């Protein structure tokens, strides 16, 4: 943003304001007691003075300043607004306008002296009759100010450059452009198989023009986010009054533009976040004083474009999130297990507040803290393809950041084929594409307790077969499951909420810009589809709702070992004491252990020759770190057995503890079990919670943190 742009904005704004000023001053003459009108006139002059001065336009500043002085006397009731006075102010307005025109034309002020007018204004202020000023006037060379706008003959950009258009018309235009995009796609498809070079050239031009037209029309539907922000000062003020807080609201990037459908969609979430920040984020003035802060809290709304998306931030300088309280609350509400909670990073903890049923408000106020809210905010933002995230520093405040797409009407999507039909997957949910062929196919898809998973860089990725989920055709799916599909398996790795899953499709086609069309009533209720679109060949393809699909298929419970994996099902977690997901491993001479799946970071295999000795302990180089290896058999059976050399590979369960990886060596990884089992309490060994019968075998249930604690002295024994 350079100076010329600032100046341009100043010109547009001032010209608009001055245009209004003319009218207002005249109105004021009719009803001189209208305080609001007077205030508005005063404000305009004040703004022009300020900005003009800041940009170094001395003449503008001076004129505006003098007019302002005069108006302020009127405002303070020191004098009545007489007709001559009004004329004087209007002359000052004209002079300012003339200067603005000069600036617009030449980038600088006209250089014409306004001394006579200035003097008149000054005298009017001092309550002297303006007529007697003549003799003392310093600048006799000045022509009458009102006549100075001779330089304004040039075309100017600030006046008459906008018109009002019916929103319905814009929507219709947008629809038509959508149709045009489809027709363009059809032409391009035909063009691809066409040899005629003049047709090729025309098709290319149609393509280009359509793209530009689409952008242009989309721009017309853009609205500055300020349109919804404008009501926040009032909201904040009311809330602050109600809760006895002092809040100052600041806004940056008010002019950042978004499609109006998106503006509509984020209105409520945004309002909620602002209320939340005032209600929960900012402290009372007394509490702020006690910690050495300004008693007046600061709430900053910021919006800016970044990477084809709009970022919106809501920052408060309040107390920040209380991580310990959130942790405790999440455990108390069974949103995460104690073990999970212990391993969460601060950022992950902060994002726990977006879970359904989470609210830390100590008392339920009438403004927020009803326990619904943040999760609704998140759902609403994700519904439009956005994301929301929170950062916080204790004592210094929090920032909620949303990333929002610019528009919803036309989105990039990946087209896939499944069961003979094409489906569109919105690009926002797409993480990567994986294709398993030949050798990789064998063992590339494993069955864990009946649920197919793929090891994606060591991490378990639950798989969904699209055709099976949709009930369209389960034959190819079954074939793929058995690894029999000759062509290989295509996995589309998707993100839904915080989880990843792989969607197995028959074919991955191409990426395309698609026009989203809503489905009509009876189909709208199926949350597996987000809408439909018309493809280049005129056929319809359904748009998959990735979140809906994941929820429908309940991917959650299927072996996803991420820390936050289980959050979404609080009802099920209520029985966390008895039912949980564990990884079954074999160790030692036929022993079986169960490791809580939430504690498992990854599953890896290392060739035996990669095992090195560091600090007299076994370790491997893993992701640029030295990862100590601990043999479960040593830990549990207390005896050191050499690595069985006949084995070329060791199986390692990677446990991540605050950025530090520890590898647990087991003989075999058996299964992932999600079942209810009774833990028989056992005394004795550290690191073992107890035993239970799982899959007809007695299994030790280990507590990794404890086990590792036990390993430290154990390691010294060996040393």
């Amino acid at each position: 943003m350079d100076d010329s742009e600032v100046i341009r904005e100043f010109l547009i704004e001032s010209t608009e304001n001055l245009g209004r000023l003319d009218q207002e001053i005249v109105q004021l003459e009719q009803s001189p007691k209208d305080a609001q009108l007077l205030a508005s006139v005063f404000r305009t002059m004040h703004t022009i003075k300020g900005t003009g001065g800041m940009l170094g336009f001395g003449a503008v500043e001076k004129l505006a300043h003098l007019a302002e002085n005069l108006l302020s006397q009127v405002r303070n009731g020191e004098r009545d607004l007489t007709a001559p006075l009004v004329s004087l102010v209007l002359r000052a307005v004209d002079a300012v306008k003339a200067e603005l025109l000069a600036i617009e034309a030449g980038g600088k002020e006209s250089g014409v002296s306004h001394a006579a007018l200035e003097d008149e204004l000054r005298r009017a202020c001092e309550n002297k009759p303006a007529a007697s000023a003549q003799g003392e006037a310093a600048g006799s060379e000045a022509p009458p100010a009102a006549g100075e706008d001779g330089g304004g003959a040039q075309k100017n950009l600030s006046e008459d450059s906008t018109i009002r258009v019916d929103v319905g018309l814009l929507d219709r235009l947008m629809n038509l452009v959508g149709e045009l995009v489809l027709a363009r796609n059809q032409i391009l498809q035909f063009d691809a198989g066409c040899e005629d070079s003049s047709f090729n050239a025309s098709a290319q031009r149609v393509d280009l023009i359509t793209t530009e037209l689409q952008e242009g029309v989309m721009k017309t539907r853009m609205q500055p986010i300020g349109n919804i922000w404008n009501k926040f000062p009032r909201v904040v003020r009311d809330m602050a009054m109600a809760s006895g807080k002092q809040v100052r609201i600041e806004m940056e990037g008010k002019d950042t533009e978004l499609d109006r459908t998106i503006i509509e969609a984020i209105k409520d979430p945004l309002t909620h976040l602002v209320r939340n920040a005032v209600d929960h984020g900012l402290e009372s003035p007394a509490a702020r004083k006690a910690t050495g802060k300004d008693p007046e809290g600061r709430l900053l709304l910021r919006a800016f474009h970044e990477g084809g998306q709009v970022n919106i931030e809501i920052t408060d300088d309040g107390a920040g999130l209380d991580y310990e309280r959130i942790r405790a609350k999440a455990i108390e509400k069974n949103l995460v297990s104690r073990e999970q909670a212990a391993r969460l990073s601060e950022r992950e903890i902060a994002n726990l507040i977006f879970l359904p049923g989470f609210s830390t408000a100590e008392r339920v106020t009438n403004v927020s803290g009803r326990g619904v809210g943040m999760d609704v905010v998140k759902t609403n933002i994700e519904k439009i393809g956005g994301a929301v995230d929170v950062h916080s520093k204790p004592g210094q405040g929090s920032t909620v950041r949303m990333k929002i797409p610019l528009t919803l009407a036309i989105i990039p999507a990946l087209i896939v084929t499944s069961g003979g039909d094409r489906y569109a997957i919105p690009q926002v949910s797409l993480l990567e594409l994986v294709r398993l062929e030949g050798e990789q196919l064998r063992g590339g898809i494993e069955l864990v307790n009946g649920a197919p998973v793929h090891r994606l860089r060591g991490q378990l990725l639950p798989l969904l077969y699209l055709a099976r989920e949709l009930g369209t055709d389960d034959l190819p799916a079954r074939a793929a499951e058995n690894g029999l599909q000759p062509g290989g398996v295509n996995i589309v790795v998707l993100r839904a909420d915080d989880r990843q899953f792989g969607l197995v499709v028959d074919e991955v086609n191409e990426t395309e810009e698609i026009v989203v069309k809503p489905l009509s009533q009876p189909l709208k209720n199926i949350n597996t589809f987000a809408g439909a679109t018309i493809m280049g060949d005129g056929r319809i393809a359904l748009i998959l709702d990735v979140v809906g699909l994941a929820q429908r298929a309940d991917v959650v419970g299927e072996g996803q070992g991420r820390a936050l994996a289980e959050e979404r099902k609080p009802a099920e977690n209520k029985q966390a004491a008895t039912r949980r997901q564990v990884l079954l491993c074999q160790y030692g001479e036929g022993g079986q252990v169960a490791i809580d799946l939430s504690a498992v970071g990854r599953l890896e295999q290392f060739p035996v020759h990669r095992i090195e000795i560091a600090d007299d302990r076994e370790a491997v180089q893993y992701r640029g770190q030295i990862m100590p290896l601990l043999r479960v058999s040593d830990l549990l059976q207390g005896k050191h057995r050499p690595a069985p050399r006949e084995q070329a590979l060791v199986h390692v369960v990677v446990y991540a503890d605050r950025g530090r990886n520890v590898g647990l060596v087991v003989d075999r990884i058996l299964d992932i079990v999600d079942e209810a089992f009774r833990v028989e309490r056992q005394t004795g060994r550290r690191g073992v919670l107890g035993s239970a019968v799982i899959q007809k075998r007695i299994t030790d249930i280990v507590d990794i943190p404890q086990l590792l604690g036990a390993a430290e002295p154990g390691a010294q024994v060996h040393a």
Partner: protein
Amino acid sequence: MADTQQFCTFYLKEQFFGVPVQQVQEVLRCQPMTRVPLVPRVIRGLINLRGQIVMALDLRRRFQMEDRAHTQAPMNVVVRTGEGAVSLLVDEIGDVVEVELERFEPPPATLKGEMRELLHGAYKLPGRLLLEIDVPRAIAVEGAQPDNR
């Protein structure tokens, strides 16, 4: 002299049906259709009607008749509804006929089950009956909540 009504007529398993012409937007040959998984089977799919996405509902299935033979391509009777256009899949299109309103009778008692629910009634024409379909009811598919209309 008597009041009359024009009907767009069509056949389903040789039976003669009609919809008031005012409700019919157009009649089309068999269109390429995209099936929609996970919906009641009466919804055969979606068709592209000049850029408008229209749901196609098979009246045979709606009336619990057996499916038409694979070789027999259905015709589309596109009707206007509160929810936008919906296409009714039928076997064959008949003429537009004009009937006198006084020939109307409620559904005959011999009609059973689903079909009785979905018909306004019958018009006694010379030699045959014209069954008038209650369009809003016919398109209110079970398992999906129709709007309160």
